Every structure is written in C-alpha cells, then in structure tokens.
C-alpha cells in the first residue's frame, strides 16, 4: 500500500460546520470609557500646565459575518465611536475596523484575505509583551485589555493586511503529517517619491514525524518593491530558522523534552547612496532548551541556553509595542519649560503611549530602567547565556506559579571590549485564598516580582551598575455574587547608570546616551466591578500614580485617574 494522503479539513475550518446552518451572524463589542485625569506637580515647577484633562468615549464594534456558501466567510467589523461631548454628530467617527475574507479552497487550502493576525516564533514574528507587566492584577489588566483590543495585540500576533494560506497533509508511513502555511502582507504603500512600497511575507513548513518529534522551517522576509519610486533603493531583511521539538516520556511521572530554534538573519540596503548604509549585515542565532515535565505534580521546568548575535535583525520579532521615542498623549509637556514627559506606567496602562501598529525595521528606543536585558524581547540582539523557567499549575490554592531566571552577557561589547552582564529574575503566583478557606467566592491574590541587575566592569567611564525591581501585585475579592472589589499596586525602583545605544536608521550604534536613574515609580489602584455575565461588566476605579526622583534636578510629578469602564461583548 503506497503513500496515502489524507486531507485534514477538520483542523483548518472549525467554523464551517456552524456556517452550514446559518448564512449570517452578528457579533460585536461595546464600550463606554470615561476618564478624569489630574496632574500633581509642584506649582513652582509648573505654573502653566492645565491640571485636569477629562475625556471619554462610547464605541460600538459591530461585527457581521456572512457565509455565502459552506466554505466561505466574509467578516466585517464596523466601529462607531462617539467622543464624550460630541453631541449631534460632532466627534462621531465611523471606521471599518476589520474586513476579512476567509474560507477553504477545494476543501484543502485554507485562506484569509484582508485584515489578518499573524504570529510565528519568538525569533521570526511575534508581538512580545510590553514593559511593566509581571503578574498583573485584575484592576490594571482590565484597562490594559482595552488598549490591547484597540491595537489588535491579541496574544502575540501582529495585525497586518494581506493574505495567508495554509494546508495540512497526513501520511500513513514514516511521517505523521506536514503543515504548510504562508502569508504575504503590505507593510506600507509608496509615497511615490522617497519611500518604496514595502511587503512582508513568509511561511512555515512543519514536519510532524510523530507525537515525539517535530521539525520545522520558518522564513520571514521584508522587501521593498523596486520601481515604485524613481530611486532604486531597496531594503531587504530575511530571517530563516529551523525548529526542533522532541519529547520523550520516561514514565508516567516524568517526561523529557528538547526544544530548539536556530537560524540566520540577513539585512541588505541595496543602492543606498548614504555612506552610512551597510551593504549587508548577516548574523545567526540559536536557542536550545531541555524541558522536564512532571505531569502528576503540574510542574514544568525548562533550562536552556541561547546565543543571539549582535547583528541579528528580525523586525517581526523585535518591534516594541511602545515607542519610547515619543511622548505620551496625556499631559504631554510639563514644567514651566514645557519639557516632554517621558512615558511611564500610567501611560502603558491607559494607552496614552505611542503604540506600534506595524513592524519597524529600526530597533526602537527603550528605557533601560524598565528593561536592559531584553528590550527587544527574546530576539534581543547581542545576548548570550543561560535561562531557567519553572511553572507549577494547580487546580486549587496557588493555581499558577512561575519562576524565570536568566543570566546573560553581551556577545560583543558595545563601545568597549568589556561586556555587560545581566541577571533577570521574574516570579509570581495567582493565589486563590478562598480555596484554602473553602469559600466559593473568589479571593484572588496576584503577586509578581521582577528583579534585574546589569553590570559592566572596566574603567570608570565604561562601568555600568543598574538595578531595578518591580512589585506587581493585587487583590480581587468577590464580595457578593458577581461583584468584585479590586485593588492593585505597581512599585518600581530603579537605581544606577546606563549607557543607552543610540542607533541610526540602519541600526548601527553611533553614540551612547549616559543616563543615571534613581527613582521610585508607583501606581496604586482600587475599584469595583460588577459582572453582568462573563462577557459584560461595569467597573469604576481610581488610580494614583507618582514618580519620585532622589536626584533633585529631576522632575517629580503624579497623575491620578478616575475611570468608569463598561464593556460588553456578544
């Protein structure tokens, strides 16, 4: 009996069965969000900035799915947004939030056209978590979720416009199956003068040998289309990786595994006349880890080693969510000198920061006090070292606990042969106290701790010694049915110095910014939430934020916020 190919349609089109029964479906979300913001700052330092900024909006996202036939879906989400105070049509905006056509061609190939969400691996394409989150309390997460929803930060995907296809094959001998997917998106149109049209495409090929062994190839490629502007410049960046996943159950209680990803990146600047533009920049990396699963205890331990080359450039995996090069929209300038206010915790949570909506070819600015070890996620270039992850899941009590540690160094010194050394520890737990008390109503304590230490030796002007610690904690208490009291705090302490890389548009380090930190950044929030049902809630909360510098030349200030948030999904 020869090879027999079986099409796996059921894996690809879970929605089709439902579609056979209905031709039309409406879903959506609604939100009312109101802010009262107050700036707290010494009047002698700032006598000009208006202290209060109140605003809000109501919006309705209406999603319409049409199923013209059993293998096709057309989905559109239309947004109506009304700014607070914009009566009778003033301040009302109508947008198309999403338009997607998806289906299955020939009962084999799944396709999506239009607005699509894409994610691959941490080194090729992934939208990694922004700063300021370890194990966030509900009182903060409620508001952060709003930002993520608006920016399409669903898990770790990037929202793009283009097309993607996928299909799977299964075999009855030698290998179990083969999954293939590919995509092509348009990153930006041309301006017809200096900026060529840019596309981003790639795909994965995953060979499933068995339940124990999986091999894969990934490729992501950015490229400018020539002849879309008079000039012939062309930027290209290719990242190709291979992955290996292997697991070996030793017995019912112990399972061993190996996961590895390695590959190359290649950036090219073709026909650039700027002498600073490198002709090409090639690099490679690997990340290999051994995993120990103890299923009966819920414990999982991973230990690994990675080496990400100094010139590894993977825009799809290195783009930051927050652009620290821009000042936040709320109280953008403060003090009598109208100085730009750097983005801080409160802005991350409320969404006042400038957030990325597409991948960036340039390594974006970062704040070393928030993260120095991994400013560009796992794919941060010029990092080498070992890491450890441990996680324990339980059905009661400490339902989810984790510990992560990494000991990294630079693989190439920046500005000196001396290399920075990083120690990063993150730990946290979700503790359901009610499980111990035998209460049905949740009493949940979220605790998270992040500690980072960066050091570099050498002469005085080379030395770096920066420590930062964050406490991320909160309490959710269901006092009566569906009514929660919530509280939370985020405390950040940073002290030390840093030398921040200043890169040009070609990601070449041209200079260093000497920065000294010595501050406390604190946010406290309390609120109440009533859950009408799992997808419909009304909450009110009050948050106090302040930043206090021990250096008198820096500006201390605070922002208090009262918010009312109504959210509904159907």
């Amino acid at each position: 009996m020869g090879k027999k190919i079986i099409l796996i349609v059921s894996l690809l089109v879970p929605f089709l069965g439902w579609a056979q029964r209905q031709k039309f479906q409406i879903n959506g979300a609604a939100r009312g969000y109101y802010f009262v913001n107050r700036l707290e700052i010494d009047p002698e330092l700032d006598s000009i900035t208006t202290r209060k900024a109140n605003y809000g909006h109501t919006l309705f996202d209406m999603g319409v799915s049409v199923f013209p036939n059993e293998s096709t879906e057309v989905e559109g989400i239309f947004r109506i947004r009304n700014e607070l105070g914009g009566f009778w049509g003033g301040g009302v905006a109508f947008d198309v939030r999403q338009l997607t056509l998806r289906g299955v061609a020939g009962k084999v190939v799944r396709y999506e056209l239009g607005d699509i969400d894409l994610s691959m691996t941490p080194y090729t394409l992934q939208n990694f978590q922004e700063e300021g989150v370890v194990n966030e309390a509900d009182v903060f997460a409620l508001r952060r979720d709003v930002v993520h929803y608006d920016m399409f930060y669903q898990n770790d995907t990037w929202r793009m416009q283009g097309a993607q296809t996928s299909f799977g094959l299964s075999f009855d001998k030698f290998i179990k199956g083969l999954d293939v997917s590919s995509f092509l998106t348009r990153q930006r149109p041309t301006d017809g003068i200096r900026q060529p049209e840019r596309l981003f495409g790639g795909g994965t090929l995953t060979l499933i040998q068995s339940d124990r062994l999986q091999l894969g190839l990934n490729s992501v490629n950015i490229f400018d289309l020539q002849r879309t502007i008079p000039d012939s410049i062309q930027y290209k960046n290719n990242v190709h990786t291979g992955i290996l996943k292997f697991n070996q159950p030793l017995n019912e209680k112990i399972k061993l595994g190996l996961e590895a990803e390695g590959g190359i990146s290649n950036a090219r600047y073709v026909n650039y006349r700027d002498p600073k533009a490198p002709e090409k920049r090639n690099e490679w990396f690997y990340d290999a880890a051994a995993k120990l699963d103890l299923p009966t205890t819920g414990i999982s331990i991973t230990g690994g080693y990675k080496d990400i080359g100094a010139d590894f450039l993977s825009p799809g995996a290195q783009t930051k969510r927050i652009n620290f090069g821009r000042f936040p929209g709320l109280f953008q300038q403060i003090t009598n000198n109208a100085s730009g206010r750097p983005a801080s915790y409160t802005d991350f949570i409320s969404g006042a920061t400038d957030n990325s909506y597409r991948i960036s070819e340039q390594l974006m600015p970062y704040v070393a006090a928030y993260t120095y070890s991994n400013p560009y996620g796992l794919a941060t270039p010029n990092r080498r070292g070992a890491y450890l992850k441990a996680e324990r899941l339980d059905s009661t009590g400490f339902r989810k606990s984790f510990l992560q540690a990494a000991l990294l160094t630079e693989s190439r010194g920046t500005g000196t042969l001396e290399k920075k050394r990083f120690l990063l520890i993150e730990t946290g737990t979700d503790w359901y106290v009610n499980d111990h008390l035998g209460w049905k109503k949740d009493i949940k304590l979220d605790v998270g701790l992040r500690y980072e230490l960066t050091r570099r030796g050498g002469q005085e002007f080379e030395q770096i010694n920066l420590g930062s610690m964050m406490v991320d904690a909160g309490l959710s208490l269901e006092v009566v049915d569906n009514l929660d009291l919530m509280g939370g705090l985020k405390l950040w302490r940073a002290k030390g110095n840093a030398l921040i890389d200043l890169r040009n548009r070609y990601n070449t380090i041209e200079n260093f910014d000497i920065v000294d930190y010595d501050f406390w950044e604190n946010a406290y929030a309390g609120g109440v939430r009533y859950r009408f049902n799992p997808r419909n809630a009304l909450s009110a909360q009050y948050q106090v934020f302040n930043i206090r510098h021990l250096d008198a030349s820096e500006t201390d200030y605070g922002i208090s916020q009262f918010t009312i948030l109504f959210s509904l999904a159907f």
Partner: protein
Amino acid sequence: MNTRYAFLLSLLLILSCRKDDKDMIDGPDLNDLFGPFTVIQPVTPDRSVVNFAADGPVGFNGELSKNTDWEIKLVGASTGARRSITGFDRVISAENGTWNGGAASFPAFGLEQVYMEVHFPNEPGAPIIRDTLTITGLKNDEGILITGFENGTGPRWSFFNQTTVTGGIVCGNGQAAKGNCYYSWNGTVGWDWAIGSVMVKPDSGTFNLPASASNLYFNMAFKAIQNVGPTNSFMLFWFDEDDDGDGVFEENTEDRYTHEHWSTGTDWDLISLKYADLQFDEDGNPVTVNGNGLPEPAKLVSINVFFLANPGNGNARAYADHLIFTLDQPYTP
C-alpha cells in the same frame, strides 16, 4: 538510554556552536567618547630642519590616550603663510600627519622658520604643544611656471600704466605671494577704470603648454590693497592664441579669450581657472572670439594681466604673482 545520550549529544552540539566576538566592539569606542584625555607622547616633527625639495615631506609623530580631533597649525615666521593638518586618531604618524611644505593659500612658505602648534579642540583644558621648524629648501612646484617675477621681465613683454600709476616688479620687501618678487600697480586714475597691465610672452614661440585644455588650469596670486571689493576692482586676463601658427597674434582673425576676476578682500587670493572654461561666459554660453573658437593652450603666445579699478574711489593698488599652469587640478601653494 540511547535516547538520553542522543538528547544530550544534540544539546552539546548546539552549545558548541557558540559565537565569539571578544575582539570586536559595537559602536564607537567609549574611551574616545568619554575617556580621559592625556598626551602620552608629545606631537613632534620627524626633523626640525627641513629641505622639502631634497628630503620630501615632514612627518609628525605623537600618541594620545584616545581618538580625538587634533589640529597641527603651521605659520611662517616671515611670510605669515599658514597650513593646518587635522585628524582624529589616537596615534599620529607619517600615515596621518604629514606636511609637504605647502600652504593652505597664498602666501606660500619661504625659506624661514615655521611655528608649529598642536591643538585638541574637543578636549577642554588640553595643553597646546608648540615646536619650531626651519625650512631650508622649498617644495617643488608641480606645473608649468610662466613667471614668478623673480627673474625680472622677459624680452618680449610689454607694459601699460596710466600716467599717474607706478607699475612694475617689486622685490625684497617680504610682500610676495611666493618667493621674493611680485608685480605691483599703485596710482590714482580719476578718469578711467584702466590702471595698468603687463603682457607676458615667452622669449620665442609659445609657452610650450600641452594641447588639451580640458585638464589644464591657469593659476595666479592676486592681492588687492586699495579700491577693493567685488564692484570696485578686478583683474582682466587676455589669453591670445596664434591660431594659424605664423608667430603673430592677429586680434581680428585669431582667438583672444578673456576672464575677469573681481577682488574680494585684501589677502592674497588664488585665481584658478580651467583653460577649457574660457570658451564659456559666466552663464555657460559660448563666448564670441575671432579665430577658430577652440581653446588651444599649445597655441598660447601671450597672457595679458590687466588691473582695473573704479575711478571714483581714489587710489587703486594691487599685486600679482606666480603665474603657473597646472595639470588636472588647481595649484596648491
């Protein structure tokens, strides 16, 4: 057990692929940006008595604690000639710090003492290193020298001076752009722009210039002293070509190319122009000449250097020196 060994072997294989960039630095050197500055070895010339013609350029040597901007300033004690050599290297050597004896502009260096100063402009509080050189032989000029007025006038030269103007070669007062002598005009001409001129001719035939005008430059030092300014005085050059080769320039049938250079200040000014550009005016249009219309330096038989000044401004005074043709690039003093 075999599975476990394979597992460990795979891990070791991957780890053995470690990269090693231990001798590389990303970005500019921090020592250069923020390190302390000291002079490890003072910057000095490789010889203090210099004969450029015989021994070639002077090299400078020194060592600093970091890469930083440095500038070696050289000033002629008698001529006031100036030259600056700059760099951004921690080690200064003949590779990045040499002087061929030339000046940045006119006046050129003579047989004289030269004061040397080394500055570090981006290092506050850095010392200024001083030294002295003595020039005993000038650098060899590359080019075809027409005259530096050092040997008097030629037998076929002709002169014009208004009756109130003193015009002629002056030597020995230390005012020359290069060497010891220069040509001077001095006088008040209240009725006319024309002050005076000198027509330089070879002793016989042509100046023996190359045939191609496209890479040939005419150069001359010019210094306006009185009646100065871009609307007040200028040099007018005539380049006369013997198109038919009969040994005589005929104004009505042969090419006379002209060029004006207006004065800008009272320092020595280097006039340099490509010979091929004489066939165009300042707007790029072809000029009208009476011969074959081709700039042909090999047929050049005379150069007239004519000083003109605004008659309404009183006394006019100017010097000219060092008429020289160079190939491929303008003259460097």
